[in-house]
Every structure is written in C-alpha cells, then in structure tokens.
C-alpha cells in the first residue's frame, strides 16, 4: 500500500475585518490508496476548508500537499488535477445547475476534458455512469428540480466519477438526506470504492456515519487535529476530552444500557485570533493552568494513535512512554 496523498503542516488563514481567521492551522495526515479517511468535527472546525485545500480549490497559506509523490501545492494548471481528484458536495440542491438536464450535468466534465471522440461515445459513457450510480435511463432529460435529494446526490456522484478520478473528497454527502436514502447512498459509495479502488476523504459531522465508512479518522477542533487513529480504535479507546464529549453526545437509538450523556459546557469559540494554549481549554473539564499557556502537540500516545492533549496519559490512566 502506498500513500496516495500526504499533507504536511497545512494552513489556511482568512482575513476578516475582525482579524485573522485560523480556519486550518497546521494539519498533517496521509491517506493510503483505496482507503477512506474520515474527518469529523462540528461547524466551524475547518473540515470543509481542509477538503477544499486538499483538492486545490483554494490556495493554502502555508504547508505542502503531496499527491502520488508530487508536490501539487503550487500547481497552476489544475486541469490535470481534476482528472485525478474530484469533490462531492453536501447540498445536492445548490451544487447542480438548475438549467442543465441530468445528462448535460454528467457530460460536462467529459466535454471539458475532451474524453470522448464523438457524440455516440459521449452518450454511451453518460448512460454507463447513470447506470453505475443507480439512476434510471429515462431520467436523463429531467432537470434537478424534478428529482428528490437522494437522486440529486446520485447525479453529483456520477459527475464526480465521470473523469475516472482516483481520489474523491466527499463533503458531508449524506447529511441532507433522510436516513433510508442516506443508507442507500452510503452503500453505493462503498460499492464504488470497492469496484474502482477509489480513495475517499469523507467529511462529516456524524460520527456514526464516519465510523461506518472510514478506515482512519481525524477529529478536528478549531482548525487543529485533536485525535487521529484507526476508525475502530477511536471508538474503543477515545483519548481526547473533546472526542469523548463528541461521542457521548450522540443519542444512540437503543433503549438498552443508556450511557450517561457527558455534557460539555459552552460553545465552540471563535477561530479569529485564537488565544495561546489548547483551543479546547475553555470547554474542557480536565483543564489546568498549562492548558491555557502552551499549545499541546499531536503525540503518539498508543501505537498509531495520536492525541493532542497535555494530559492524555493521565486522563486515560496510561503509562507514559
């Protein structure tokens, strides 16, 4: 297995009239080919910005993005990148042009990249893509407004697959769908990954969805990675106080063995000119003086399990190594 994508110390700051907004503030990770990296966090943690940075929709302030061994941080001509990396958007209502029919939407990337020699080839390629994502052929002349959210999201997926990319950033692709439709789309995405050896970066606020689809997970808080490990490991040994809070806040659909909901106080603080120290300090129940002064580093606390917390060992009764 080789690393398809590697990100080093990636930063994105936005200038606002109130100061510098630290949307992504030094993130490192890598994704192996054919695997799924889940990115979870609440609104404003920088997960969507991270997704957009990685496929070069926006330019980073600092840091490196390495794809297939090549540094793509400064690549100017993005056409060739788009054939390799694509994006599936959260909102299937605003991410489709309302004045284009289903087949026009799906064939657009094929036309731009001149992937088909003639009209017949284009036609058959679109039909094939629609079949792949489970859209009935009779819908090809329909317009997005005639279709429900699940079908629209299938159009978004077909469009992303059109150029046969290796890497797809999925930005909350199922958050706006009903649960029964959400499950259909998740199954579709997992089947496609198996058939086409796709690599996903799957962004979501829903931990149960992320757990279901991911191999590795990073938990983000205010532009920083607070915990990074294998998907099942995160749920067996949750180490960071924020991940713990996030996990315990999920209401589980069962009447058995109700876990105690641990509430965290307060709300996410502003990412504009963040104070020194740990960004979670204001809401953390384990907070001590040092947390307000020094920013914790992301350290390997257990094998392949990284946490950024001064007291990760202490809180979890682990021996320091």
């Amino acid at each position, binding site marked *: 297995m080789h690393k398809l994508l590697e990100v080093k110390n990636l930063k994105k700051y936005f200038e606002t009239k109130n100061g510098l907004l630290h949307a992504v503030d030094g993130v490192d990770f890598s994704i192996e080919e054919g695997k799924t990296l889940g990115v979870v966090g609440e609104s404003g943690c920088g997960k969507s910005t991270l997704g957009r940075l990685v496929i070069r929709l926006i330019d980073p302030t600092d840091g490196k993005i390495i794809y297939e061994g090549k540094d793509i941080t400064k690549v100017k001509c993005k056409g060739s990148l788009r054939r390799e990396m694509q994006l599936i958007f959260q909102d299937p209502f605003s991410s489709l042009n309302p004045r284009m029919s289903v087949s026009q939407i799906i064939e657009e990337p094929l036309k731009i990249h001149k992937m088909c020699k003639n009209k017949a080839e284009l036609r058959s390629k679109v039909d094939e893509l629609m079949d792949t994502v489970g859209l009935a052929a009779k819908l090809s002349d329909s317009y997005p407004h005639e279709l429900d959210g699940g079908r629209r999201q299938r159009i978004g997926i077909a469009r992303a697959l059109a150029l046969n990319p290796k890497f797809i950033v999925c930005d909350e692709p199922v958050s706006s769908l009903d649960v029964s439709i959400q*499950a*259909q789309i998740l199954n579709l995405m997992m089947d496609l990954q198996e058939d086409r050896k796709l690599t996903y970066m799957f962004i979501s*606020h829903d931990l*149960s*969805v992320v757990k*279901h689809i991911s191999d590795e997970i990073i938990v983000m808080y205010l532009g920083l990675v607070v915990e990074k490990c294998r998907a099942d490991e995160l749920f067996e040994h949750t180490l960071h106080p924020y991940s713990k809070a996030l996990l315990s*806040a999920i*209401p589980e659909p069962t009447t058995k063995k109700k876990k105690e*909901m641990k509430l965290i106080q307060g*709300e996410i603080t502003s990412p504009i000119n963040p104070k020194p120290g740990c960004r979670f300090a204001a809401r953390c129940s384990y907070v001590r003086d040092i947390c307000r002064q020094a920013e914790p580093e992301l350290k390997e606390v257990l094998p392949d399990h990284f946490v950024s917390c001064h007291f990760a060992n202490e809180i979890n009764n682990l021996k320091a190594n």
Partner: protein
Amino acid sequence: MNDRNSPLLSVRNLTIHYITDDGIVRAVNDISFDLEKGKTLGLVGETGAGKTTTALGIMNLVPDPPGKIISGQILVNGKDILKFKKNELKKYRGKVASMVLQDPMTALNPLITVGEQIAEVLRLHDKLSRADSYIKAAQMLELVGIPSDRINDYPHEFSGGMKQRVVIAIALACNPQLLIADEPTTALDVTIQAQVLSLIRDLIKKYGTSMILITHDLGVVTEICDEVAIMYAGQIVEKGDLEAVYEHTGHPYTRGLFGSLPSLAVKAHRLNPIEGLMPDPTDLPKGCAFHPRCPDKMPECVSRTPVVIETEPGHFVRCLLYE
C-alpha cells in the same frame, strides 16, 4: 372530568389534505393518538411523512388555503380545538399549547430584542405589566441558561444553540400544558444538541409539561420520550412505549429505519436500507401505502388497507402481517 387517566390531548381520525393545482396532497390520513398529562411522545418519520402537518393541526395553524382539515377531532382537555373561534384560539396558542420550530435562525424576529419577544407573550397571555413582563423574561432567560444581561440583545448576536434556547424560553414563558417541539435540535451540532435536549428534559419535568417531539432521529427519541409513534405517508404505522417499539419492532418500515442507521456499537459492512423512495403524496399506493417498498409484501397488501392492531398491550402496529 379531570381524572388522572383522561388524556391531555386526544387526536381522533385526523385527516389533513393540501389542495394544490397539481392534485390533492394527502399529508395526514386518519391518524388517532392520545397523549397523557406529563408524558412525552416522539413523532418519528422521514421527510414528507406528515409529522409537521400533524403538529400544525394540533396548533390549528394549517395554512388554509391550500391546507384543509378534512375530518377528525383534536381534543385538548376534552374540547375540540378545531371548533375554536378566533379569540379562543388566541388564548389557546402560546398559553395552553406552544410550539418550538426547527430553525431557530428564522423563528425569531430579527428586528426585535429577545427580551421583548419573550415579554410580549407574557403581556398577551398573563396580562403582566410592561415592567413585570421584563422581570419574568429575564428569569426565563436565566432558566434556559442565558445570562439575563443579554435581554436587550438582538437575535443575530446569538449563536444557533443560544437562539434555540430563546425560542424555548418563549414557548415555555406562559407555562403551557402542551409543548410541540418540531425538530428542535436538527439544525444544531451534536454537543449543542445534547445541551438543548437536556435543557428541554429538565424544564418539562420541572413544570410537568406534556410534549410532542417531532424528529427524524431515532436516537434523540430515546433521550427524552416515553412513547414513540412512527409515521409513514401520513399514517402512524407503529406506536408504543420505547421498549416495545425499539426492542420488539413490529412494522417492516420501522425495521427498515433501524436497518438504515450505521451503528456505533457493531461494525456492519453494509447497511440494509429500505428499497425505493417515499411515495408521491398526491398519488399514494392503494392498499398499504408501504407495500411497494416492503420486504414482507403479501398479495393482499396491494388491495387491502391495514387497520391498527394491538400486538401487545400498548403496542399498536398497522400492518396486515398482524391481522
């Protein structure tokens, strides 16, 4: 009359349609249920199941036109609120029953301070003076966890979670007997959702308020509800206390909903979603509305409409499998 067992709310054979140019949208079709005092009912279903229309019916707020309450009764304390005159409705809404809407961003008036929005309800219903209404409004803010010195702030100065707290303060200001919460936490992050749910739970316990919680999230229901009703295509397909519905699930649709949820506890490679899509409410299938998607479909499901069957005491299922 007010003996312990008489329900606060009794919905009888309620049918609500929207008459549109494209046809008749059959939003709510012959639903009946009771809600006892101090109890909480979770109303669960997907988009278009008729949850919100049911709630609007109970508030007598169905927009007419295009909405029409075709038949049925909604008895609150034994009185049919659908027969109320305008001035009776004014006293009913906000005082006897009040509602928390899904989107706290649009539920508040952006031009009026949050304090005034709470105080207004108190002046209208409890006939408080201006000064008293502000004192009570400050108390309500503290009660929902907002410092009372923010009473003169405008909605845009609050975050989403805080706005929803303000909406809850308005809804509970006059101590209503019935609270209808329509997806109160759907627009919020999970940690904030947990805070708001625990706030609602504490407040309705403190005041003995009955509640109908509308949600699409089967997890949220278990945090706060005593009973749950599952809606599909304008009908209640299953109803019972939490344990009955979650542990002895009867209806194939409810089972499909559970199968669609990725679980935190067990690792499943594939989910088992319900096949197909929600039916078009202007053209509902004949017989059982769920039959085109049902894995347990029988020949008679196509022609015969199931009636509600009590499979065990207090557990109702609307499915021919049990007839």
